[in-house]
């Protein structure tokens, strides 16, 4: 393995060790470590976040009951107040050993924080990027974020890993001219990032940089890729689409490859590992939890039950009433906190009552399933049974996750934007109880609150439109 590149970095910042065969050969196993943070064993994954937290998992629960080594944080989740005001995350004073980013988001001390531009599944923007800015979507709408401001965030926020800005366009059709622009801008933006790193003061060091690999065919970004080899201060690669992987120059082969391409199923993950991805972001974990699905696959797959020809499902739909008397854990042989404390019957109840705890438990379980899935993958690669295990996995399990039946939590605008012709998700279902909610809100505590409570349970978990006694209470103390 080529270590000359790594030796030029301050040793304490970041290291990636490939533990299997040659760097170029895939699949490969490795270990990404940053001092004081959990190491990421690869192939592995980091959790996706929304507004600084893993959805439905409070940081205390995350620290105590998950093995999640790191999280991906998109800058667009923190910029609602800009440009009129400085976003609070830039104002919060850092503490010794506690960066602004970590202090603001309350992420646990040993969780690796990766800062990037946009959410893993970004809301499609009607604005285009410009030479100086990229489009973001915050809870108050679309706007441009200046590339230089984002680069400055690296030293101000001090993530453990900083994804350099790229002119990423999330559409499938693209003109040749647009492709040229993507290349031009991305290499300019990367240059600026690297220059900022060189210029950084010692008391606010620039975090390790992951350089973007653009979501276009390798032959279209040849020049950009060969340019990368001239930079010694790149610590890793951010992959926006695995189609570009074959184009990575040999001299960059020993860098960790972090994927921002959302896989649709565990099968996709396996094929992306074959293509050379080391670290994944996996939005389908959260989507499954919101849909009431408990992931139930494992790797290597268990031997198929006697001559059964129907494929096994990848998840169990716990929103279905058939589970309402089941004392089984969410999925067999799982030792996660949810399976430790929660039966299928209770989960079915939580989902049908739309209690938030249901989604919390499913998130804990689904992240635990993925943790074991990757542990199994690493063991399989190490044991040399990978190819056979992948074939067996693809044969045993269905190709896609089950269709969603659970209504899930209310989806916020910044998470999803309905396009023309799309139905509004999770619409209101108050019906004729609406009036009671209003009456209840007026009375205050006791009966009023209880009435409103019961009405709320007809539908919504956290509705912002209906306000409560809050404002009045503030006056009366």
């Amino acid at each position, binding site marked *: 393995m080529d270590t000359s590149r790594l030796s030029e970095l301050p040793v304490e910042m970041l290291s990636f060790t490939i533990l299997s065969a040659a760097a170029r050969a895939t699949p490969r196993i490795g270990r990404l470590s940053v001092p004081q943070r959990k190491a990421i064993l690869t192939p592995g994954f980091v959790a996706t976040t929304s507004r600084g*937290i893993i959805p439905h998992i409070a940081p205390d629960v995350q620290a105590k009951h998950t093995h999640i080594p790191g999280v991906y944080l998109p800058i667009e989740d923190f910029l609602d107040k800009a440009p009129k005001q400085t976003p609070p995350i830039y104002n919060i004073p850092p503490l010794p050993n506690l960066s602004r980013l970590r202090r603001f988001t309350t992420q646990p001390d040993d969780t690796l924080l990766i800062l990037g531009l946009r959410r893993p599944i970004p809301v499609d923007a009607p604005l285009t990027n410009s030479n100086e800015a990229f489009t973001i979507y915050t809870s108050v709408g679309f706007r441009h974020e200046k590339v230089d401001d984002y680069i400055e965030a690296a030293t101000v926020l001090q993530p453990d890993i900083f994804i350099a800005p790229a002119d990423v366009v999330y559409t499938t059709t693209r003109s040749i001219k647009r492709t040229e622009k993507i290349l031009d801008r991305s290499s300019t933006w990367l240059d600026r990032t690297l220059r900022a790193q060189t210029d950084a003061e010692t008391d606010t060091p620039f975090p390790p940089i992951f350089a973007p690999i653009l979501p276009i065919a390798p032959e279209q970004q040849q020049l950009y890729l060969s340019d990368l080899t001239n930079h010694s201060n790149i610590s890793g690669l951010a992959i926006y689409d695995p189609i570009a992987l074959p184009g990575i120059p040999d001299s960059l082969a020993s860098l960790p490859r972090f994927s921002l391409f959302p896989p649709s199923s565990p099968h996709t993950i396996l094929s992306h590992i074959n293509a050379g991805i080391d670290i994944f972001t996996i939005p389908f974990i959260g989507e499954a939890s919101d849909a009431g699905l408990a992931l139930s696959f494992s790797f290597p797959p268990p031997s198929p039950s006697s001559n059964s020809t129907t494929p096994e499902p990848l998840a169990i739909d716990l929103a279905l009433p058939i589970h309402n008397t089941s004392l089984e854990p969410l999925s067999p042989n799982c030792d996660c906190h949810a399976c430790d404390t929660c039966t299928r019957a209770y989960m079915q109840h939580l989902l049908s009552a739309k209690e938030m705890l249901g989604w919390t438990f499913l998130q804990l379980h689904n992240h635990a399933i993925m943790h074991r899935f990757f542990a199994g993958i690493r063991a399989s690669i190490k044991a040399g049974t990978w190819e056979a295990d992948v074939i067996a996995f693809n044969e045993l399990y269905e190709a896609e996750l089950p269709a969603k039946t659970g209504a899930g939590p209310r989806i916020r605008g910044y998470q999803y934007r309905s396009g023309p012709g799309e139905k509004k998700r999770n619409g209101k279902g108050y019906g004729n109880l609406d009036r009671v909610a209003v009456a209840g809100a007026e*009375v205050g*505590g006791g009966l009023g609150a209880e009435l409103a*409570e019961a009405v709320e349970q007809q539908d919504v978990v956290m509705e912002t439109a209906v306000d409560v006694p809050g404002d009045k209470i503030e006056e009366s103390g």
Partner: protein
Amino acid sequence: MAELSEPDPMPRPPALKFDLLAKCSVTKARASTLHLPHGAVPLPIFMPVATQASLKGLTYEQLDATGCRLCLNNTYHLGLKPGQEVLDHVGGAHKFQGWKHNILTGSGSFQMVSLLKLAKVTEEGVRFLSPHDGSPMLLTPEHSISLQNSIGSDIIMQLDDVIATTSPDLERMTEAMRRSVRWLDRCIAAHKYPERQNLFCIIQGGLDLNLRQECCEAMVKRDTPGIAIGGLSGGEDKESYCKVVKTCTSLLPDNKPRYVMGVGYPEDLVVSVALGADMFDCVWPTRTARFGNAVTAHGVLNLRNAIYGNDFGPIEEGCKCTTCRSREDGGMGATRSYLNHLVSKETVGAHLLTIHNVFYQLDLMRRVRESILEDRFPQFIHDFFNKLYPHGANKPDWAKKALATVGIVL
């Protein structure tokens, strides 16, 4: 109107032990320990409400960490979902939701009457249309107790005939009070497990102090292990509320816990303790958390307000809840600013505020209890109101009046 018959008192011994530890030398406040089947509980106490066997996104470990040892479930909701069959199958609500400590269940009468427009009360029970399929249903005292027996809660409540305290119909109020006493007798007779579940009676009688007195006398004779004061917190003025509480506590025996149902604002708790009450429940602190409201010693803060956007202090300085406690102290060190960023956008915002609000309420009662044990509760009351109303003049009249009746001049 049927007169009340002589009672069959509760079989003894009850499934609890009540240790009265101290009485305030000025007010009617008491400090005690209630030993229940799932562990000891310090009184006075606030009980958070896990209506549908879940406390608003908190894992039971997080609830445990707030110090909660007794929470509420709702018989009406659990009777519909998951239903009695499931509860019997899984072995009760403790096992069902994975909660190791105590549970109290309301009988369901309150929800029935307040939520279901077509509910009709007869001597037999409450008739209503199923919210699921519109089919006619009947909730009798026997059925309510049977459901609560299946739930397995440590404290179960009688089915009572609840009407709004503000009802001007004295005849209906008298009927409801006496019917509640008759239904108590039916509940006592139907209760299968008095040795492991404690049945509490519920004093009714609206705002009429004579009716309350008659009800207290009749129910005390039934000798239930604990006594609730019901039908309050339904929109009556607070002066009347305080009069009812004080009238009832004066007529109740010293050696039993007294539970005022549906009360939860901090100042209501402190005044009610001074008037001699021991136990309280309310959905308000957990419900209001979901709208971004934090309960503090200085009043309620709506953290959705933009003024908190750049406020990097904890919700409440010195608060020992997991949300506010610093990272060095094993907490999350969440700032007002971050809660402003999360609330009403991510469920975790609600989790963090719920943790704080439940902790605040429990901690308030812990401090109340300590001050009673050390006989400095009157000073505690002064300090509490001075913090909540820093400009002396605007302390609420109802609280001044109520406290004056127990020897405290605010």
